[in-house]
């Protein structure tokens, strides 16, 4: 059988009944589209989380209220409920951890809060991080202009704010943000610094470059921030992480019940978040793959219709010398052409939608997901095409020619 014939018959089959071909491939299009979108959202999310944690700075321990990561390796429910309600962490704990000394460099308390920042009529939803002056060094924040707040700002509860570069541009445009006022929940803060870009998108919310940093004490009085959400402890050197973790745990144990806090290092945290996100992505893609199977059944159905519609044509081809294999290959190719067409359309649509989505939530197309989606769609066509194609190839030429 010649390539030209294969190409011709595949093309003709797609062309012969355009509406039907399109509707048939719709199942595959949707299947491939959802596989691509879900995997790219999943990997976008994974990248984001990794980026954000790496953006926090290195050699850090997290002291969180309750059990952050349960013994089974997943997130414990406590982490969420307690994190959002009552945290038993206090500034006393920060001081106690600092007193440990070597290998602990420093410890800072952090409270984060979603907030609406306003300048004139411009409004922007973002996140506040309230902490102490050491925050900049622990998080390795550099400054684009101005300065970070210092301990005096914190102790005297000055209403000053340091903002991310994206937010500075959003609120103040090209003019310098330093010395300008911005309103947080109706309370005015003076911008004293703009930090360097950290990159990374947010979960449909603020990204790292839009965060507003304010002194913790200011936040407690002006914005009614209650409690401390977590502590960051900076350790001197990666190989000291384990020792630091043990020391911090022991000190914290003196103040709180074992169940009321947990100490985790960054790598552990990132790893378990990635494991969970990976599993979620896999499960979602698996569900999406079911729609590919449904699409495949659609192709099989229409190929069966096609075989009986074209019984006479099959008979004619056989009369002219087509071998059973020629007919088999022809119908397989047609099925594969239908599914590949659907696959390609799905991939193109998936890429487009992913690009658009990426403006709002992190979405990252991976080459492997595209390759996987395409080959799965192609094989779907072949697998679901086999039955109709075999049926066609087994028709006797004369039975087929007689068929009316």
């Amino acid at each position: 059988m010649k390539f030209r014939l294969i190409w011709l018959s595949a093309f003709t089959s797609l062309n012969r009944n355009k509406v039907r071909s399109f509707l048939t491939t719709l199942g595959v299009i949707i299947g491939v589209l959802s596989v691509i979108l879900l995997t790219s959202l999943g990997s976008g999310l994974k990248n984001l989380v990794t980026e954000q944690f790496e953006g926090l700075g290195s050699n850090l321990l997290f002291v969180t209220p309750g059990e952050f990561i349960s013994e089974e390796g997943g997130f414990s429910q406590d982490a969420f409920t307690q994190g959002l309600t009552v945290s038993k962490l206090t500034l006393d704990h920060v001081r106690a951890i600092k007193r440990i000394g070597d290998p602990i460099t420093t410890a800072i308390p952090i409270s984060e809060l979603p907030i609406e920042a306003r300048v004139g009529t411009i409004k922007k939803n973002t996140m506040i991080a309230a902490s102490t002056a050491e925050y900049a060094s622990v998080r390795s924040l550099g400054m684009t202009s101005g300065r970070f707040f210092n301990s005096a700002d914190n102790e005297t509860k000055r209403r000053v704010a340091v903002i991310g570069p994206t937010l500075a541009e959003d609120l103040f445009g090209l003019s310098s943000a330093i010395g300008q006022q911005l309103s947080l929940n109706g309370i005015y803060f003076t911008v004293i610094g703009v930090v360097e870009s950290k990159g990374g998108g947010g979960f449909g919310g603020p990204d790292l470059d839009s965060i507003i940093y304010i002194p913790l004490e200011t936040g407690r009085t002006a914005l009614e921030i209650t409690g401390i959400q977590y502590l960051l402890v900076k350790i001197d050197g990666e190989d000291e992480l384990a020792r630091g973790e043990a020391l911090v745990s022991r000190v914290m144990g003196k103040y709180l019940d074992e169940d009321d806090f947990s100490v985790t290092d960054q790598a552990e945290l990132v790893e378990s978040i990635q494991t969970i996100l990976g599993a979620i992505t896999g499960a979602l893609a698996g569900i999406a793959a079911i729609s590919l199977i449904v699409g495949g059944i659609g192709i099989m159905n229409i190929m069966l219709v096609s075989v009986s519609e074209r019984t006479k044509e099959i008979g004619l081809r056989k009369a002219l010398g087509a071998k059973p294999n020629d007919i088999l290959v022809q119908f397989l190719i047609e099925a594969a052409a239908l599914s590949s067409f659907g696959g390609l359309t799905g991939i193109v649509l998936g890429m487009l939608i992913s690009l658009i989505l990426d403006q709002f939530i992190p979405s990252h197309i991976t080459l492997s997901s595209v390759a996987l989606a395409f080959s799965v769609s192609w094989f779907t066509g072949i697998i679901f095409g086999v039955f109709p194609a075999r049926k066609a190839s087994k028709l006797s030429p004369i039975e087929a020619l007689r068929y009316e």
Partner: protein
Amino acid sequence: MKKPILELSGVTKTYYLGEVKIPALAGVDLTIREGEMIAITGSSGSGKSTLLHVMGLLDKHTDGQLEFLGKETSDYDEIELSYLRNRYLGFIFQQFNLLPKTTSIENVLLPFYYSDQKDITLARETATKLLERVGLGDRLLNYSNQLSGGQQQRVAIARALMNDPKIVFADEPTGNLDSKSGGEVTDLLIDLHREGKTVVIVTHDLELARIANRQIKMLDGKVISDTTNGKKNKRNSKK
């Protein structure tokens, strides 16, 4: 006498409709020689179409011997039969049976695609010449559904000639045509015979049958008369 192409002896074909046995061919002895033009006539149900299908290697006979170019074909499988049909046989059907939404030239090229010939340029030249010969030189790229019935049948004739077959089988070639188009098709068949092709026509149109020099009449699955230029042929003219 010229070489025999097809030799049938005691060929039977039996269909089963449930339990009922239907003998479509009840022992046919027949030899077809190169260059003959044969018309097989008979009422419907006489077995003439079945005979054409069996001779055209489209259908397997139930019993008896069928030698094609001196070789017994009874044991041939589907692949070998496909090869023989493609290489040595041409078919013209009552319904034309062109591929829909396909150009004339692609329809004519179809037997080439299933052959072991490789040269597409040469094949295109041949196909073009054949279409010119049937008077459709200006319709090479027309889609089959844009052609009249007579034109479609002429494309089908060009297609039947594509691989330069030993025998052309025509099954009621004018059955679906008006008298003018039918006349054109008839003339083409006469031309083919003049050029030395072996042509076998199955028809109940006695007008068409008259163009053949050899007349075979069928009744109840048997040959009841077989004459060449009015002279009776011997039964079972096996060598």
